[in-house]
């Protein structure tokens, strides 16, 4: 079983990385780029088969460690 966790900055939080990338892409001639936000995608290999339980446990992991909920939001998907 796998969990796919996406951790992204909450909207409104300034993203220095995203900003730097926006600037760089525009400088490279990709002028269609308006804005960039960078986040993390964390893939977990998990023991067990119970999706509901996994979702609950992984959400707890996010709250405890994987995301800094002061500035970040997360989503969890469980797949096989």
């Amino acid at each position, binding site marked *: 079983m796998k969990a796919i966790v996406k951790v992204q900055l909450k909207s409104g939080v300034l993203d220095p*990385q*995203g900003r*730097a*990338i926006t*600037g*760089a892409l525009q*400088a490279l001639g990709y002028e269609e780029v308006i804005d960039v936000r*960078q986040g993390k995608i964390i893939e977990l290999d998990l023991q067990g088969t119970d999706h509901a339980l996994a979702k609950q446990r992984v959400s707890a992991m996010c709250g405890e460690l994987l995301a800094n909920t002061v500035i970040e939001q997360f989503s969890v998907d469980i797949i096989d």
Partner: protein
Amino acid sequence: MSEGVEITAEIIAEHGLNPEEYNILLQQLGRTPNLNELGICSVMWSEHCSYKSSRIHLAKFPTTGKKVICGPGENAGVIDIGDGDAVIFKMESHNHPSFIEPYQGAATGVGGIMRDVFTMGARPIALLNALRFGEPGHYKTRSLVAGVVAGIGGYGNCVGVPTVGGEINFDAGYNGNILVNAMCVGLAKTDSIFYSAAKGVGNSILYVGARTGRDGIHGATMASAEFDDDAEEKRPTVQVGDPFTEKRLIEACLELMATGNIIAIQDMGAAGLTSSSIEMADKGGVGIEIDLDRVPQRENNMSAYEMMLSESQERMLIVLKPGTEAESRKIFTKWELDVDIIGKTTDTGRLVLQHQGEMVCDLPIAPLSDMAPKYDRPWVKTAKAPRLDAGTLPQRDPIDVLCRLMASPDMVSKRWVWEQYDRHVMGDTLMASASGCDAAIVRIRDSEKALAISSDCTPRYVQADPYRGGKQAVAESWRNLIAAGAKPIAITDCLNFGNPERPEIMGQLVQAIEGMSKACKKLSYPVVSGNVSLYNETKGSAIPPTPTVGGVGIIKDISMAIGFSSARQGDMLVLVGRTRGWLGSSIYAREIENLIGHRPPPVSLSTELQNGKFVRKAIKKSLLRAVHDLSDGGLACAAVDMAMASNVGIVLDPHSTLPDNAWYFGEDQARYLLSIDAANYNKLQQLSVKKGVLLSYVGEVKGDDIRLGSARIRLSDLQIKWEQWFPEFMEKIDANAGK
């Protein structure tokens, strides 16, 4: 698996073994090797591990001396600095990986050289790096600079060892093959230095550090593709460094070293498990048996071949004293590192590997090392370069020239680079990049002593005249340490050259080594470690020959450390050494007149020695306020360095007979610029007479302009040009840091 693979001529060739080499292997074995054995031999006999093209020439280096505890041959060189303290250091190249993947290539270069040093019982205390990139206008240069610098900082900063110095040059000759040479200096106790000879029979072999993956398995794409259908998945990959693991490995190894449990220890560098196990066994005259199933593995279904050839980073092999296994393992477990006993020493003199219940390799160790090929490759002398007659060059406004030189890529401020390096962690750095000293100065903890460390080479000179250039690299290194207030002790080196199978390249290597040896002997400045990197070429065009010299000197009393940032208004400027106005192969000739390849400045080692001793004496007698050695850009550029570092104006008088360009920008060797309190002039003069050293008054410290004769520029204007170039050059990629 691998045993089933038939050893064809094609496979042999793909492993880089020529027919004679393969025949030696056949004779030693008395049978056809299997693929594992072939792979192991091929890496052991590769240029990188066996030094087959350079070995007979490296033997020319002087490698002993009163202070040398251990010269070349171990993981790093060891020198005695008194009071039971030893300094362990080495330099190594990571050129090719850094060109392929600059961040990881440079990072793993730093990691690798640190392991060579802490393997021997030293805590790493300083890092340096010598970098050569292609011309700034080349489309790859900018991103290579950005990646390499970030990689060096990313690794060293995280491990927590200060990066204190280095050099950066740009030259079209490196467009297709950059150089990344990393140097590490460590501190140990003379009575607890660790070597790699595995002694005794039946002793446990401990594997510690990161797990083994399919990283950097060279020259064997084909072979690994045979193993499995999903070959794409298993394609050898670039090694990724993990400084966090390195940091823990350092602490854990030092902790284990303190227990006295270790018989031998060796890092897994190039050719990983293969070379570490074979070298340890060979040095100790024992055999080794390894159970590959016990090797901590990162990936599934790794073959014996892959495990033996993997270059995964941050791994060590340790032979333990009997009965200490449990205690030793505990240390690594505490540091959250993978650890297992993977085998033992034997009395068979053979390397025996077990994998999944089968014996997959059985090779005699000593013959493999003894029979390693050693070539006396044909070489030709580099044609004598023509002299450049300074008299035929046009006269130019010296200030204009000065501005152009100080704003040329090789001469500009490298602040953009070194501000990304933590130069002060560990709390012992006195002077580092930009602190206005010819060498970095790092204090020996809890003592009055310090080390001076520098990295030097002038490829322009080596290219035009490898012998003279080799001599010069050593002389400049020695001079830089003198100018920091140190007594030069020993060097490490990194010899970067093209394809040695071409006689003209081999000639560069041989002559450079001979020039370096000559200088090392005369200056009592032995080579205690080093590295050779050959085949640095792309599409048949070789890099400029670049024998980088990493010098280490000792400052007995830290209050004697000096640099060029302490010149004061009203000081007199005096020049040590003779100026003939040598412009051949100078920065002036290249940047201003577009002339390259002329005969570089002569290097008189006896003058070098004499002048150096004089400067040392003057420093000891506290006669000097500031010292700077003269190198690229000659007198005027050295004076500007001093002016900028000390934040003072400087006036240099023109020469009575030499043309301005030759006087201000000539690169004659064995010279130093001194700033002194006028009250000390007489004493200094007397000392110079006694030592037979030529001393001339050349100007004074005054105002806030740089004045060359009647021409002048504001120091601050010049400084802006000097500081601006790098950030402006990097700006475009600067925004790319998100990568």
